[in-house]
């Protein structure tokens, strides 16, 4: 069965195999939503194996690449039914920091989980997070940072949401190399994740 093969190929991080199966299924007229579900199933298995420390960063990165390529093949076949079913999430690396590896993986995994992700890139000023959350109606904002100077930017971003009167309506999560409980307390965010799997779990907790 093609969708099962696609899910299995992604779970095994078989880039060529997964993409070939997606093309084959599209040519055969398979329902694109079935294929999207297969991608999610495969990515979910990758996440489980990452949590079990069977997989590490290279597998996460490669599976995210496979997902991005596969979804770009499928998207032209998706109509309105293909729109994200989850809530909106705004994500970005905070001002003063250009690191984006972790942020990109989390953004892809959130998309894969069905969230409508607005990725603002890197070095994002607090006001841009606030404006984008307003524009999209996002109830979750994810801040990333690898540098210790990012702590101040994270705090400033949380404060910008408070100043805009949005702190009660928006949950803010943080992540990145040096982020821990102490940084969470300093920034005043709602939660922090140590890896992409935890970020997805937090999104599910806050957005359902």
């Amino acid at each position, binding site marked *: 069965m093609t969708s099962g093969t696609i899910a299995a190929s992604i779970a095994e991080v078989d880039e060529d195999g997964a993409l070939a199966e997606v093309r084959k299924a599209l040519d055969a007229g398979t329902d694109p939503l079935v294929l999207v579900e297969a991608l999610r199933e495969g990515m979910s298995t990758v996440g489980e194996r990452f949590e079990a420390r069977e997989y590490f*960063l290279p597998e996460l990165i*490669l599976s995210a690449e496979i997902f991005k390529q596969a979804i770009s093949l499928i998207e032209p076949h998706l109509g309105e039914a293909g729109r994200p079913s989850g809530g909106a999430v705004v994500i970005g690396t905070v001002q*003063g920091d250009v690191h984006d590896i972790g942020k990109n993986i989390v953004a892809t995994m959130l998309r894969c989980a069905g969230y409508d992700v607005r990725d603002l890139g890197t070095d994002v000023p607090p006001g841009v997070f606030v404006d984008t959350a307003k524009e999209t109606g996002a109830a979750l904002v994810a801040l990333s940072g690898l540098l*210790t100077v990012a702590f101040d930017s994270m705090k400033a971003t949380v404060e910008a949401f408070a100043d805009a009167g949005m702190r009660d309506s928006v949950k803010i999560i943080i992540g990145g190399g*040096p982020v*821990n409980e*102490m940084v969470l307390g300093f920034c005043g965010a709602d939660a922090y994740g140590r890896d992409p799997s935890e970020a997805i779990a937090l999104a599910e907790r806050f957005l359902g």
Partner: protein
Amino acid sequence: MKITKKIYAKDTMTSEERLQAAINLQVPDRVPVCPRIYYFAAKYAGVDNADLYDPATWNEAIDKCFRELGPWDIINPWGFYHIEVISLIFPMKLLVPGLTLPRDSILQFLEEEIMEFEDYEWIMKICRQTPSLSFLRLVMKWEPKIWSQVPKGWKGYAYIMPRLLDHLITWRKEFKQWAAKGVTPLSGAGVEAAFDSFSMARGLVNFSRDLKQHPDVIARAAEAMTPGNLYLIKSAQPILGIKRAAIALHRSSNDFISPDTFRKLSLPSLKDLVERLKAEGMSSHLHCDGNWDLNFEALRELPAGCVVVELDGTSDIFKAKEIIGDRICISGDVPASLLALGSVSEVDEYCHRLIEEVGKGGGFILTAGCEVAPNAKPENVKAMLESVVKYGYYDRATAYKAAATGA
């Protein structure tokens, strides 16, 4: 260079003797301390980070830290005065304060490809042709991809070599100045470990693909690099006068790779380099960024008594002591977040625990995790440095007796 001045009146060893004792897994008079300060010095001295590329400004800034927050035993040679020389060690495109970033920003690396997949085979070829010069040939291929001002071909060597030499000579002068204060350098010349430099130069997406599809090619190219890395370190050693080599491992932690990948693809070339350095009478100072918890067991394969593993606050340093403490000196690991956000009593408490547990029986250097955070509180840095005086003196007779009886 000879160091005679003691750091504290109660000391019975010089800083050099103290550091060497720790590396050799002996019990020094007290725990040695190295703050690992770079950007923090700029903030503390009231200059921009971009100003640190001027040797006089860097030396004034770090000296102010030493006078007002120190003293300390060990200085890390981090002054970089020609930006292109950084890329000899870290093969990645950069955003630089004062050039492509605001003057008070910190240097940041960009995850872009500067090494093509075909370069693995090319590396193996040049390592066969000119093993000693392979490091230089490789980085000189990459330099023009990172910096537009570095010409390709022999003109690139003419551009880089005087700047590299200028660094070495300046560092030698600085080492002498520190020696007069009783302070010893952490290490002399250094390289990024071969596996890790490929990861940085390829970019993580490409390298992840290489790991999946061509692991054997990575391993062979990394192993081929050892003579070139060794040659660079050996060539700089007579100028710098320090028989301690720095080896950076930015991409071998379990944040990046599995313990199995580390053991099969990263460790062999690392072990080869460390063993060859040992044969030259040199120790290896491994800068281990990220979480190494699952790699500790494999590090036991490295020769005993000549390696320092420096942890950045992400690994479980107490677990490291249990697993590798009988073979490897451990250095670390006051976390950046603690120095930036914690209180003096929290820093003091953590340093006390490090000294008591990781410092037990010697083989320990107290340092900040990776480096002192640029936004660290000065009073926290002072508390870290003072903790070795408060808690770090060993009762050497008791320690040796305990070691002899296995207590």
